[in-house]
């Protein structure tokens, strides 16, 4: 399974573009497995430092998780305010603390306040679905790449089929260094 489309400037990426390793996650903000994988990714990022670039793409299962798409829209809005990763981390942290079913307008308000984001503008982003097309493009690219559930990871363009824990992810990454 190969990543289509490849990572580009349009992606949300943490780390250097010329890092030897790129880890791409297709994730759903209301998926409990994604929330659980979030600290795993951060541990891997810490362990690999400059050698690793991490990219997050949206894969909201909107029918199953009604807040997944609004959460993705919220994070995209936060990106325009320069705080994508802060919002991304805060949404997953909220989900781990309060449960994924508690995500919704109140949670987004609280997160916007804690990150000192312009809440009114974010609310408008979510309700006008300004970034929905981008989110759906992420989703469709994921389908084409063989994403069959969340989270799905790709390492340097190839799907990682191991367990989403620090040991297995690190081993797969190290093998490519």
């Amino acid at each position, binding site marked *: *399974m190969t990543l289509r489309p490849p990572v580009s400037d349009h992606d949300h990426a943490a780390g250097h573009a010329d890092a030897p390793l790129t880890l791409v996650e297709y994730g759903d903000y209301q998926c409990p497995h994604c929330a659980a994988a979030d600290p795993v990714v951060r541990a891997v990022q810490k362990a690999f430092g400059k050698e690793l670039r991490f990219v997050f793409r949206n894969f*909201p*299962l*909107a*029918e*199953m998780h009604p807040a997944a798409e609004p959460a993705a829209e919220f994070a995209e809005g936060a990106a325009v305010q320069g705080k994508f990763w802060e919002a991304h981390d805060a949404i997953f942290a909220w989900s781990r603390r309060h449960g994924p079913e508690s995500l919704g307008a109140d949670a987004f308000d609280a997160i916007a306040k804690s990150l000192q984001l312009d809440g009114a503008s974010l609310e408008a982003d979510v309700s006008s679905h300004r970034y929905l097309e981008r989110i759906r493009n992420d*989703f*469709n690219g994921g*389908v*084409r*790449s*063989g*994403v*069959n*559930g969340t989270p799905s990871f790709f390492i340097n363009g190839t799907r990682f089929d191991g367990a989403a824990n620090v040991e297995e992810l690190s081993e797969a990454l190290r093998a490519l260094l």
Partner: protein
Amino acid sequence: MSILAAGSVAPNFSLPSTPDQRVSLADFRGQVVVLAFYPADWSPVCGDQMALYNEMLGEFRKQKAQLLGVSVDGVWCHAAFSGDRKLHFPLLADFEPKGAVARQYGVYRESEGVTERALFVIDAEGIIRWSYLSPIGVNPGADGIFDALDTLPAKGSRP
């Protein structure tokens, strides 16, 4: 019998989709049909697979393709599963005689009495253009389906 391969005529069928409705393959002549056999409602992998396809109905529509799910579960089981997962495409009950359609397509598992996890893309003339037998425990995703849809002749609007 092994899974029907590309180039075979898709056997026609008529199966219940709800307690009072039946769906026939012939109903969709002139349209592309994606037929997804799966072992059982409610099992974790099937749920994920059907949930994934449910999110892609818009893409299937763009490709003018109709998605149909098939398992040996009965109509009431399908109704409960479909309602719980908010599925917006028909689930057909290959229930009586059990697995008869799956057998015709070469995707029945005698040992467990369920259908294989198998995908078919059937063109507007009723010819199988692509088929895929997935390992039963693996959600095959949808990349193969879309690759197959891409190879079909241009789907202009019909006169």
